[in-house]
């Protein structure tokens, strides 16, 4: 079976419903290369197939957002939602496509943030190594991915529900360690003055440049995940989610696939963690405590764990609630509001807001030929 056949066989999503179009005779001007390299053509094919009108509208929308919104909205709402959404995206990859609900994604993100503070510049001058930001970020990402792989190795030895419990325990363990250790993690206080870098003329501390940085990372992450789940690896992962025994019988190394998924998700979470640390200009144990770990789960489930965009939808709703629930509802009862919303969503729409949207569409719109709805998450 060729890769193309495989893809078509496994393909139950949006692409199946789009009318097939004939290929352009030449690659688009954007690429700027004379030879039509096969990978480029494949990528463009992929883009043309994937992006419909609504995609273009949203893309344009997020690109011009800083120019219509105030700096506060750009930074506190927009950039924060994108960074949180990226971390939640890692959970969507693991849980929605891999069937492994890991609560340690925020822990990986937090660790990456800590490492950036330790390797780079911060207010704790006795601890920070003061390496240039590029080196610091690279090392931080690498170590965070290594940690995520270790977490994955530990967690795949157990199954299903156990994963939640074990990742929860690992996350809390790192929280306590960071809180107690002063030589490297600076204890309860954490690191302050962890600023995004200035590259050439662009100071990424400003709301608009930082927003675009977060947007770039988020877009990369989103398209990466969308592409990954169509590759043989991604499809195998979904197969493992549905029936690990059968996949094992077919000759796939189930454990290796799962650990690799943890590593990839770890990379996404680590990038999100660096962004969040730069956004807050600080990192402390509380940034990766139990509450925040659960928040990421809430965000992912709220938006819908079946599709990568769900993570960002959930993040936007969560950030809006967090900032404006205070004005609308009693300010002290924010947790009740978010918990209640989460509970309602899980009880009545297991696919989150996206599931609700799909339900509404199917009720009022033309019937789609095939759906990807499952009865349970």
């Amino acid at each position, binding site marked *: 079976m060729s890769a193309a056949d495989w893809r078509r066989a496994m393909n139950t999503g949006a692409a199946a419903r789009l009318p097939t179009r004939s290929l352009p005779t030449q690659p688009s001007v954007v690429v700027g290369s004379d030879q039509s390299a096969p990978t480029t053509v494949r990528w463009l094919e992929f883009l043309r197939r994937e992006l419909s009108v609504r995609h273009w509208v949203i893309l344009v929308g997020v690109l011009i957002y800083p120019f219509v919104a*105030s700096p506060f909205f750009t930074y506190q709402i927009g950039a924060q939602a994108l960074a949180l959404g990226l971390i939640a995206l890692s959970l969507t990859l693991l849980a929605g496509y891999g069937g492994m609900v890991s609560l340690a994604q925020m822990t990986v993100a937090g660790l990456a943030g800590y490492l950036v503070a330790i390797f780079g510049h911060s207010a704790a001058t006795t601890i920070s190594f003061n390496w240039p930001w590029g080196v610091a970020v690279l090392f931080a990402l690498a170590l965070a991915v290594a940690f995520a792989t270790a977490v994955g190795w530990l967690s795949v030895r157990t199954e299903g529900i156990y994963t939640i419990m074990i990742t929860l325990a690992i996350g809390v363990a790192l929280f306590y360690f960071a809180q107690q250790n002063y030589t490297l993690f600076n204890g309860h206080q954490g690191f302050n003055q962890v600023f995004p870098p200035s590259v050439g003329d662009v100071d990424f*501390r400003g709301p608009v440049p930082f927003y675009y940085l977060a947007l770039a990372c988020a877009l990369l992450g989103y398209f990466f995940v969308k592409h990954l789940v169509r590759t043989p690896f991604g499809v195998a992962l979904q197969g493992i989610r549905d029936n690990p025994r059968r996949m094992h019988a077919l000759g796939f190394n189930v454990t290796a696939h799962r650990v690799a998924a943890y590593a990839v998700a770890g990379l996404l979470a680590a990038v999100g963690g660096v962004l969040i640390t730069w956004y807050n200009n600080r990192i402390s144990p509380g940034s990766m405590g139990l509450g925040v770990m659960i928040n990421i789960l809430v965000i992912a489930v709220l938006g819908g764990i079946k599709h990568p965009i769900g993570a960002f939808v959930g993040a936007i709703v969560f950030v809006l609630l967090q900032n404006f629930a205070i004005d609308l509802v009693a300010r002290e009862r924010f947790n009740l509001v978010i918990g209640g919303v989460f509970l309602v969503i899980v009880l009545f729409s297991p696919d989150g807001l996206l599931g609700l949207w799909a339900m509404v569409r199917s009720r009022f719109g033309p019937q789609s030929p095939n759906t990807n709805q499952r009865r349970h998450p």
Partner: protein
Amino acid sequence: MKVMKRRVWVRSLLAAAVAAAVVSPAWSQETLKIGLLATLEGPFAVPGQDSMRGADLALKEKNGMAGGKKIEFIKLSSDATPDKAVASTRKAVEQDKVPIMIGPLSGDEGIAVKNYAKTQPGVTFINGSSGAQATTLQDPAPNFYRFNTEGAQWMVGLGEHALAKGYKKVFLIAEDYGFPYSQVQGFMASYCAKGGKVVDKAWVPLGTKDYSSVIARMPKDIDAVLVVLGGSDAVNFLTQYEQTGGNKPMIGGSITVDQTVLNFKGKRRESLLGTASAGPMADSIDTPEWKKFVADYKAAFKDGFPSPSLFAYLYYINTKATLDALDAVKGDLSNGHKAYREALQKTNFKGPAGTVKIDSNRNGVGPTYITEVVKASDGSFYNKVVKTVPDISQTLGLSETEFKKMGLGSRDVPDCRK
């Protein structure tokens, strides 16, 4: 087709809502908005509410006006985490465009808000009640003012008092984070210098309620136990200590000997009498200013505590300083608040619990009250002021060079075991 239309409709609604939220101007002509941040969420909600009462009282005394303008508090909430404190502060400064910001409540939040203040030089930040040393000692922000004294200053003088009571060797039990470090440093600064010994320090992780292992470690030849825990944790400690047969007297930190401890119903209740403690205020201060403050508080807030708490007092003096300075410059916030900040620096008034003024680091310099537990005529226990130590600065009674040598309080600093 229908679906398309609905989608476009929904999207345009959303866009309109966003545009409206973003474009609405901040009308602030005769009204001056001041941001007010305290922890109103989570377990510290009750002290947070009282701090708001303190600020409201200060505004009430001025009939809601300062500098010729009507003052409106934009009340914000955090949950005692620094991240949330900064997020709320950012919302007030960048979205609601407040020129002056008062808050936050807890120590670590204070450090985070100070760091944020450095990125907003055009806004003046005034502390609420946060009491971490590092906020003004390490890398201070030129636009962050703290009119209250901090955790270490609150314990100065207690060391000498303990020596006077004959406690030459003490054992410390405290939680393992910044505020207790400062408190212990304040105690030890003079205690060690005058010959006292802290034989061992038991730093328990934050949130621990089980002190049995620590109690088992306590040596037998100590004179007293220095307990720097929150009031309710101190009750746990006392109960467990009593049950294991402990009988040494206690010295308390600033937040230790509170109502829950004073109402302790254990067998060794009588041994609580004489427990020494120290802080920036006490319920039983015997000056007319304090009595007036308590009376005003009680009259204004029927739903408040029987007596204003530490947080109400601290927010009160910080807010009063803010408003007084506005009056002094007649509301002139021009030129990057230049005149206003000079007025803040010159603050010097008689607050309910002593003079309120600041040093060159914009940190409060003020008195500390040493208290002991005594029995009232009706049999209940209360903290009686036995000594007032005036004009304590952040160098804790030491010279600048000595203090710099010591450094900020941490697990091992200062140390006087032998």
